[in-house]
């Protein structure tokens, strides 16, 4: 095990340590076309991480989404947007995935439990199921059977994910949570949020989005309810990244960012209204919890619901104003 001094000496001996920042950046900018290159380079060392964040990602954001950047910076106290350049860049190029758009949070009551209070029978049956399967840590291949929308069935897509993935503390990624904590907290979503790991399918967590990477205010204004028309929400190009879960609907996933979130009406509504947060972490920054904009009545009412109660549009926002959401096809008969 090398100590830091030996490590430092080794670093000084390398050629790369001798190169000036602008030469290193010259190399990095030749990797610009594929966003994954920079993300991987950022994981190499603290110096590379700093260069990627403060120069590369900053530059990329400033050139591809200049109006968003200038809006975000005009209100920020620091010289970087809320959540940092890394978060903004990730928002621009990454789809939040089914997990962070809240699609996988769906359960038979779609957040009604939070509104109306817990359903004791439902919770008890779920606790029982989880306790029985506590010792099962086999990483079985994922099979996604259609989840029943019947209220008496305590099984959902989420349980499937939980039981089929291995819980590994050291390697755990987005969305880690202790299901027991969820049940204890009556304010959170009814069904236990499964712990996710690398074993989870790629499309379910955030990944490189397909299509053009652009954020526009126009799309954002179509999403918010009328009383929030003065809030500025930038959303990625519609229809967003398309995903479907076998035997279920197609989900079009989108992401966005509020300008000056803490001064927005949406923020006042969720903060002053003391809306509870969901234990669904932001796809783009370190925020561990987000607010459900749909149940906070911030989204346009006309989007409506499907027969089984699933909303046509849902979205989640974090304290930094990052939004992840999903919309489904309209129901056939409105």
């Amino acid at each position, binding site marked *: 095990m090398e100590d830091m001094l030996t490590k430092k000496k080794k670093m000084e001996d*390398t050629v*790369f340590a001798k190169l000036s920042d602008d030469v290193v950046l010259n190399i990095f900018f030749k990797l610009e076309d594929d966003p*994954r290159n920079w993300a*991987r380079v950022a994981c190499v*060392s603290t110096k590379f*991480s700093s260069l990627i964040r403060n120069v590369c990602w900053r530059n990329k954001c400033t050139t591809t989404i200049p109006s968003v950047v200038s809006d975000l910076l005009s209100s920020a106290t620091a010289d970087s947007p809320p959540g940092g350049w890394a978060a903004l860049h990730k928002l621009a190029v*990454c789809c939040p995935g089914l997990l962070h758009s809240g699609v996988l949070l769906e359960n038979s009551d779609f957040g009604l439990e939070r509104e109306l209070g817990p359903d004791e029978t439902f919770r008890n049956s779920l606790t029982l199921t989880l306790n029985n399967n506590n010792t099962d840590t086999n990483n079985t291949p994922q099979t996604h059977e259609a989840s029943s929308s019947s209220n008496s069935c305590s099984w959902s897509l989420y349980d499937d994910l939980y039981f089929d993935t291995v819980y590994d503390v050291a390697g755990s990624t987005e969305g880690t949570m202790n299901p027991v904590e969820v049940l204890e907290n009556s304010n959170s979503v009814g069904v236990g949020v499964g712990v996710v790991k690398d074993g989870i399918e790629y499309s379910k967590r955030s990944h490189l989005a397909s299509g053009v990477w652009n954020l526009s205010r126009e799309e954002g204004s179509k999403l918010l309810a009328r009383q929030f028309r003065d809030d500025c929400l930038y959303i990625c190009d519609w229809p967003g990244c398309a995903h479907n879960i076998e035997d279920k609907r197609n989900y079009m996933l989108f992401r966005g960012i509020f300008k000056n979130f803490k001064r927005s009406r949406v923020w006042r509504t969720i903060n002053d209204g003391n809306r509870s947060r969901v234990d669904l972490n932001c796809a783009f920054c370190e925020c561990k919890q987000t607010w459900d904009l749909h149940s906070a009545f911030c989204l346009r009412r006309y989007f409506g619901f499907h027969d089984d109660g699933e909303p046509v549009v849902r979205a989640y926002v974090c304290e930094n104003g990052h939004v992840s959401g999903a919309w489904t096809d309209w129901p056939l008969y409105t």
Partner: protein
Amino acid sequence: MALELKSSDNKIFEVEELVAVQSETIKSLVEDGCADNVIPLPNVDSKTLELVLDWCKNHVDMKLDEEKLKEYEDKFIEVDQAVLYDLLLAANYLNIKDLLNRACQKVADMLKGKTPEQIRETLNIVNDFSPEEEEEIRKENLWAFEE
């Protein structure tokens, strides 16, 4: 008009001015009238300087033949890593833009598609993240890893 350049290991190279001024560094010395005597280049060894001067000479000779020049450049840059880095450092020090660009491009090509561990190995860089920092940054960038 010939110039004399001295490498770090004291070897003298006689070069035509037209070739030498591909280096912006040398060019400014010439323009400032400081190039009358031997120009010392303490940061470049003779092996590297020879290569660099070959690049410069060919860029003067083949200036009008783009295809031939590209063929030359591609062949020129096929060197092992140690030499590549020496060229990179020399091109930077001597400020030879096209050589610097070509060398940077070669390094960039070497990094494409590599994982952070592979990049560290290729560039001989030490991982100076703490375990917590490393986990955090991996999580943040997980989207860049699996297909």
